[in-house]
């Protein structure tokens, strides 16, 4: 194993990151430093500059800004309220009805917006005052919101899978999207089971039975926003359009919905929403461009190969190796956000798991699931931060009720890891993957 290049790459990256350099630049400089080991100064700057721009040259990647834009339009268009009302209809008769409602609303909202943080803020913002009024422990309701908000990253459409597809040289996005359904829904359901047990023990109430008329009205009201999922996923599975085209259609649909149909956004607000989406996107995109440069630097230095060799020398048992990789990713997830963790560790671990005969779509689901847990854990966890802030509780308070949820999520992660069918069954049936 070529220790020198590993040290230069990870040493530069770690030093700059701890110093507080924005992660995109830290990644780019680490790539540059690694290339300097193999070629001249002029050649190194040339290859990094090329990779940063060229890494963005992908029609697939366009789907990310479009899905983000569609999500932002939806968020301003007041869909959270409509989805929550519909979730109440679905979960009203269960003990701890509002907790279940929170999970279901997160699954629907997250599916559409593709953002755990936006979901935790929009859904949790509405739900936590309601829950407080009915006597729920605020730490418990915040924990439910935090643990369930990442479901939308697994339930498609999901920008996370697009990033994964790109960094793995084009793993089928349609297959990844469809593969996310069962694990994402299982994640929501198992959280509901735990929440239900706790709610029953504490005697949290069921909701009032709504009238038949209300049920119909609320269901119909949620159909239009949920129609987005039907259009996007139906179009992709049916082969009518590609993921990127679907994302552009999603933008048009949400525009129609919130500007013309609901009239909740005035056309004058649109430039602001577009710019905000461009800003959010470019944070990811610059990081992607630099990560592509880093993955090329790793390939030049044979780093994935070395790491794969080292791991394979630890054990030849695939079960053990997958456990090691999952543990490593869980540790990474505690202190790193989703996107950089995905960008940096996918090219390192994918060759190893492919050697073990694992399908790249399956690994994409495992990786995403794992990092979903990561954004709920301290010290760095975006879902944790946002969930605590909208729930009005301190991080220290929420950790106790979170423990049960962590346990169930980790158990489910292992299940998703060791039962490939959970991920691959749907793509096989629906797409002939």
């Amino acid at each position, binding site marked *: 194993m070529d220790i020198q290049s590993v040290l230069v790459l990870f040493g530069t990256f770690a030093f700059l990151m701890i110093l507080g350099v924005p992660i995109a630049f830290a990644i780019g400089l680490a790539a540059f430093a690694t290339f300097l080991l193999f070629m001249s100064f002029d050649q190194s700057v*040339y290859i990094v500059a090329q990779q940063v721009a060229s890494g963005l040259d992908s029609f697939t990647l366009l789907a990310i800004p479009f899905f983000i834009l569609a999500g932002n339009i939806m968020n301003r268009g007041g869909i959270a309220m409509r989805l929550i009302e519909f979730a109440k209809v679905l979960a009203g008769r269960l003990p701890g009805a509002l907790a279940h409602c929170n999970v279901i609303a997160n699954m629907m909202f997250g599916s559409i917006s593709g953002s755990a943080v936006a979901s935790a803020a929009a859904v949790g913002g509405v739900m936590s005052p309601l829950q407080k009024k009915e006597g729920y422990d605020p730490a418990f309701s915040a924990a439910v919101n935090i643990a369930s908000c990442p479901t939308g990253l697994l339930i498609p459409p999901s920008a996370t899978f697009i990033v994964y597809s790109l960094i793995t040289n084009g793993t089928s996005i349609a297959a990844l999207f469809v593969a996310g359904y069962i694990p994402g829904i299982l994640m929501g359901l198992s959280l509901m089971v735990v929440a239900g047990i706790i709610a029953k023990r504490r005697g949290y109430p069921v909701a009032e039975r709504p009238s038949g008329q209300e049920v119909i009205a609320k269901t119909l009201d949620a159909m239009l926003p949920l129609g987005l999922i039907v259009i996007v996923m139906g179009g992709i599975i049916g*082969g009518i359009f590609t993921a990127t085209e679907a994302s552009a259609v999603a933008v048009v649909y949400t525009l129609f919905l919130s500007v013309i149909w609901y009239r909740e956004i005035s056309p004058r607000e649109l430039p602001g929403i577009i710019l905000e989406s461009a800003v959010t996107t470019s944070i990811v995109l610059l990081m992607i461009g630099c990560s592509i440069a880093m993955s090329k630097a790793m390939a*030049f230095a044979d780093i994935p190969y070395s790491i794969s060799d080292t791991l394979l020398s630890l054990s030849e048992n695939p079960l053990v190796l997958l456990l090691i990789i999952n543990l490593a990713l869980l540790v990474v997830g505690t202190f790193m956000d989703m996107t950089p963790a995905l960008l940096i560790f996918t090219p390192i671990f994918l060759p190893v798991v492919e050697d073990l005969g694992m399908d790249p779509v399956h690994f994409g689901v495992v990786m995403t699931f794992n990092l979903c847990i990561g954004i709920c854990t301290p010290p760095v966890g975006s879902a944790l931060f946002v969930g605590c802030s909208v729930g009005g509780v301190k991080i220290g308070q929420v950790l106790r009720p979170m423990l049960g949820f962590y346990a169930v999520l980790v158990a489910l992660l292992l299940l998703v890891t060791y039962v490939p069918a959970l991920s691959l069954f749907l793509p096989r049936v629906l797409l002939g993957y």
Partner: protein
Amino acid sequence: KTLRLNHNNPEDHPLHKSMQFMAERVEELTDGDLKIRIYANAQLGTQRESMELMQNGSLDMARSNASELEAFEESYGALNLPYIFVSADHYYDVLTNDIGADILASSEDKGFIGLAYYIEGARSFYANKAIHSPADLKGMKIRVQPSPSAIRMVELLGANPTPIAWGELYSALQQGVVDGAENNPIALTSARHGEVSKFYSDDGHTMIPSVVMISTSSWNDLTDEQKEAMRTAARESMDFHREQWDAMSAEAVETAKSELGVEFVEVEKGPFIEAVLPMHEEAAAKSPVVADLIKRIKAAAQ
């Protein structure tokens, strides 16, 4: 000394095996002085990126094809013209004689030099109906590679050229996003297009070779013996590749017929040739270099 060679095929692809053959021969011929390390699956970059990296010497070698190379060196355009070759033998003859050698050498001042051509068979149309003449193509949406000559050719034949990414083509054919595509018969089996397109109409419009290249600066760093070894190994690997490819192609046709139920349609090429012939004149009018190459290629057919 080890040279890095980057390409975008998987490791079980015949092109990869031919490059491996070349690498082994180079190592033998130089008694281990010169090695080639092959990076499959575009690990070091796409074909276009590889070209740009070779131009500044960050990458030693790469494989691309004549269709992509046209954007870097116009001479390759002559090989991409439909019906420029009259037979598989004429095609291989041009690639191995001085015309092929001149094209390989033509890009020296652009930062790279061609070493070997690897044939990839003749490309034909496939769809869910038989295509006997250009009239059958009228109004059909045909997937093409995003190159001006491919687009122009399909237009001249009366169809609607539709650029779709290779990875999405299977479902595009299945769902009718496009009505047909064009490629060699191996696409029917390796990309399973034979499952969704049941007629392969053997019009053989283009024969576009892959090209293995070395950066001009890496080439100039080699000793004369090393250059000679590279040339020998490259030439030997061309023949090795041709044999391998022809065997695979025949096998693909068999599998497509027997297992996928694809019907192979004999096509009268005359009307096709007539329809696309203006392209030869257009290409010649645009560049004297290409005009000269076209004349020489046609002369070699006699």
